[in-house]
């Protein structure tokens, strides 16, 4: 069974500032399965927005900060597929391109200990039933970076299937991007909206009450669209459903 794991929570700037519920739920789920959670207060942002918008030259300081803040962690856990991917897939290349071999080596050493929440639970800890109950109709959107960069596979679905009372319905064309893409949503707002509209149509077709995903940024986009359309469907982060004990 499980040995006591001590996980450092990398909350992400977005969840810290705008979606603290997701952070609290992440802590609750991890503690329920016996993980000891700590939260280094010196953390800020992984730099993904800067890097993906063409301001990679502003990010090196954030790479160094991340390594300094989390370098000693047993494991790092984050409720965001894209921020985990930034650290695991992006950091080493950025350090190498900047010619900082020492930093690149530090990143190489740290990256394998960085996990997105569902990965930590299912792959590292071998837990699928986290003791949640949630009596609602739910559909799951696999976010692009969880799917294609982290390759989390069906880990989030395994966790959801084990939730008591859940009515989990498959989202058609689930693997199509919701159209967020960071600053893409603003720089190409029309295309982004067209992609979002098709995603919303699929979600509404499932007649789910809740759309869930493992990334606050994509959920902010989908949720913003659902609210704008007054669709009466809400978004919840995967962690919030896994933390629920509604009966």
């Amino acid at each position, binding site marked *: 069974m499980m040995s006591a794991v001590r996980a450092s929570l990398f909350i992400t700037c977005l969840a810290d500032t705008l*979606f603290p519920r997701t952070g609290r739920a992440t802590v609750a789920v991890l503690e329920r399965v016996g993980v000891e959670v700590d939260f280094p207060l010196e953390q800020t*942002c992984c730099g993904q927005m800067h890097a993906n918008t063409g301001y990679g030259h502003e990010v090196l*300081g954030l790479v160094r900060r991340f390594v300094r803040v989390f370098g000693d962690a047993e494991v790092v856990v984050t409720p965001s597929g894209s921020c985990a991917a930034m650290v695991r897939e992006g950091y080493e290349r950025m350090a190498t391109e900047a010619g900082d071999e020492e930093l690149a080596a530090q990143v190489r050493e740290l990256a394998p200990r960085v996990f997105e929440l569902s990965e930590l639970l299912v792959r590292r800890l071998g837990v699928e039933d986290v003791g949640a109950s949630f009596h609602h109709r739910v559909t799951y959107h696999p976010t692009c970076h969880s799917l294609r960069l982290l390759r989390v596979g069906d880990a989030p679905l395994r966790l959801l299937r084990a939730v008591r009372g859940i009515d989990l319905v498959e989202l058609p064309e689930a693997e199509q991007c919701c159209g967020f893409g960071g600053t893409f*949503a603003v720089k190409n707002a029309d295309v982004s909206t067209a992609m979002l509209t098709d995603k919303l149509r699929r979600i509404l077709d499932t007649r789910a009450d809740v759309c869930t995903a493992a990334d606050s940024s994509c959920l902010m986009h989908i949720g*913003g669209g659902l609210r704008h359309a007054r669709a009466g469907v809400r978004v919840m982060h995967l962690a919030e459903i896994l933390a629920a004990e509604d009966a």
Partner: protein
Amino acid sequence: MKAGFPQAARAALADSQLRRNLGHATSTIRAKRGRVVGEVADWEALRAAGAEIKERTLRHLDVHLERLEEAVVRAGGTVHWARDGAEACAAVAEVARAHGSDEVIKVKSLLSDEIGLNDALAGAGIHAVETDLAELIIQLSEGDSQSHILVPAIHRNRAEIAQIFRRELGVEVSDEPDDLTAAARAHLREKFLSVRVGVSGANFAVAETGHVVVVESEGNGRMCTTLPEVLVSVVGIEKVLPRFSDLEVMLQLLPRSSTGERMNPYTSIWSGVSDGDGPREFHLVLLDGGRTDVLADEVGRAALRCIRCSACLNVCPVYERTGGHAYESIYPGPIGAILTPQLRGLDQAPTLPWASSLCGACYEVCPVKIDIPSILVHLRGRVVRETKAEGLSERAAMGAMARVFASRRTYEAAQRMAKLGRGPLAGAALRPWTRSRELPDVPDQTFREWWKKEQRG
């Protein structure tokens, strides 16, 4: 001056007919590709081999090109070196003129469109007849242009095509596919048998043997490369392969990725000229056209591996909604977004690297493993650093955000400001977002405030 992607896309998004045509066509090709790729057990090994062959070749491109020239000359062909499109067009026009021909028949060739060959030939009094069905549709339709690498008329449905044929060919034709192809065949057959100069591009050119390879579906390419007296092939320098055996990998990757077929119907492979068989004169025009500049970018040059299969277009959620014209280039979709700015210069297409949500679907299907999302990000960085395309207000906002994230003190101060709707972290309240999406409510307590209060720190 080009409108730029965001603006060009807006018109396309509003065209309901276009959206329907594209949605139908891309999802059909996507499904076909998925099926035939799924049945190849060593597909990932093939992709890796394809990527390595291309990567190795590009590293010693000069050597392979000189070997190609020697082999083509040895086989009785003539090689022309063209620095840019104008030189390549002039070489083709000169060959046609030398044979007294005011008409050439053409195999579908992206490169010829990249360099504006048809217009250049028209300027020299030579009419270029497109013989690929889709290219013919585009040519007959005044003011239209290609919107897909493999299926250039993907934005047209068969009812629209029937209208074009009735109007331009003066034939009575229904919108049944068999009828449409029969009308095109009748029109083209006469050209195949009478025009004396053929023009093609190439999918591959083999340095070892001097073979040139054209892969196609309709058989028009076979006609154009065998029936005329003279054949001119205009080929980008990145198309060279070192060895004939490299085709073993490429000819497996290409048809499955592009048309979703196990094997394409026609593969024409020839070297130079042979007595009594095919054209009596063969000219190979090798074009640089900005490619050596692309080679100079260590990250961006992987774009030159591209074998023009168009799998990335068919899986791209952006392309599926905008179609090809929004990219304002003969190379649309994800590959176009990395190729066009590099070939034309970043300042000529500065919006294209942002024409992607970085979802990564393109990289997953690319048969030569071009990491398109990473190259897009790299080119975004170059646009920011090397051009003035990104405005001062964006630069200022990104700088301010970077300072916010640089320390715990500035970050927590910005979070407090955001609750009041002010400061760099509240700057996300941009109009393009709120036109179609609500902003989340800023909560009373950040996560870290809860953590500090609750327990723990």
